[in-house]
């Protein structure tokens, strides 16, 4: 089987502190508006009547997402120049010399991973900190997490260890692109299919 690097995310311990997001931004020197890894805040719940009293069942969970370096990345498929390419270890990279900034990958990606860099007129995205990977070091986001909620490794090994969850609201149907991600879900994430769930920090992601 082809090698495929993947992120592991333990949503059940994530506090939504955004250290991963900030470490990524800092390490990759990303300009304003570009966030390769971002933390989505999901809120839900309502008032519920219990006997004669009213209570609530509100909940919040977080979802830290970067590029999932999908096995069947639609960005790779639609890119007209071949700038979007997969390394041997499964990491999806953009060759800036080839990119023409047509933003087609941005339309197609259901994880909003490729983001447009207006200064360069090119697309940009999470590169799995391959410079660190090649030196045997962890990516910046993984190293930064105070809860040790993030990890990385070979997809099949992570799946064997943690299971096959790769779809938590608001992530799309995983069959669209086969994302290389393994998630240990937050206890309340199962409720996300219910009514009234919304993203709490739309302006941040």
């Amino acid at each position: 089987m082809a090698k495929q690097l993947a992120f592991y995310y333990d949503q059940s311990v994530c506090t939504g502190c955004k250290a991963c997001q900030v470490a990524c931004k800092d390490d990759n020197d990303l300009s304003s508006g570009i966030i390769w890894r971002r933390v989505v805040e999901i809120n839900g719940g309502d008032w519920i009547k219990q006997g004669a009293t009213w209570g609530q069942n509100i909940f919040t969970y977080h979802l830290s997402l970067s590029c999932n370096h999908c096995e069947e990345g639609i960005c790779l498929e639609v890119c007209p120049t071949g700038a979007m390419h997969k390394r041997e270890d499964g990491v999806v990279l953009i060759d800036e010399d080839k990119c023409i900034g047509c933003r087609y990958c941005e339309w197609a990606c259901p994880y909003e991973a490729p983001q447009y860099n207006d200064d360069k007129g090119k697309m940009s995205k999470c590169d799995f900190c391959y410079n660190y990977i090649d030196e045997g070091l962890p990516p910046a986001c993984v190293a930064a997490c105070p809860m040790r909620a993030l990890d990385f490794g070979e997809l099949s090994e992570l799946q064997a260890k943690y299971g096959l969850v790769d779809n938590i609201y608001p992530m799309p149907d995983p069959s669209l692109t086969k994302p290389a991600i393994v998630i240990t879900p937050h206890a309340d994430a199962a409720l996300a299919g219910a009514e009234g769930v919304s993203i709490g920090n739309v302006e941040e992601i």
Partner: protein
Amino acid sequence: MDTRDWALVIFTICAQMAVGSFIILGVVHFFVERKSGLQEADRMSDRALLAIGPVLVLGTLASFLHLGSPINGWRAISNIDSSWLSREILFNVLFMGAGAVFAVMQWRKLSTATIRNAIAVVAALIGVVLVVSMSQVYMIRTVPAWDTVATVLSFFTTTFLLGAMAMGTAYAANYTYMQRKSEPGCGPEGAQCDLLRYALRGLAVASIVLVGVTFVIMPLYMGYLSNDSAATQQSADIIVNDYGVVLGLRLALVFLGAVLLGGFIYRTASDPTRERWMINLAYTAFALVLISEVLGRFLFYASQITSGLG
């Protein structure tokens, strides 16, 4: 919608109008040749053909404006293997090339009419493939509002509607020019005058039918958007709530331009004393339908919502 996406509105509208015009020109040429012979048909078509090239070139230049790095633009053709965007560019270049070869041969009357016709048919087929690949660019599985047969159907109705309208205008302009030069056949009962009426009647009928198709697709498509998924519901919300006025205007203008004025064109084309009316109506109808199609294409891009977090 990103401001730069207006470049795509211009590109797709111009390229589709060029393909539609080229095909309509061929079909009309076929019928008028049977009616009045090759010489009269060529007199009618040759200058109208002149209008198509600049529209296609304008659209292609506009397409570069939507790129972040236009200098690198030529690379867009490199991923023919899997990217419909590459294929679209390829067929755009091929259509431009085949159309140009035909146009030069037609004006210089090189080779025989049969061979010229064969080249025109090849160019027209490439044009059809171009419109198909244009729709495939948008029919991506992660954008459910675009990934429907409505995209192909609406691209082709735009192609033929704008083609018919643009060629109606081109014939009328050519006729007016010939009249001013006092060329033969442009007076009452003249062959050119006769052909213009004949062509405009046919184009008016075709346009009314195409608007009928649009008015059938539209409600079905909106029904699909409201029911399919969260992403398509968001698209429907943008079209109806954010841009309801644009949608209303788009539908009103295409109805006014193609159906109402189309009907008037048909009637005035049957009455030799109302020639100026017929010609001015043809110009007005084209302007209204063009505005309508631009607004419709704006809505298409504005309602782009990717599944998931896109």
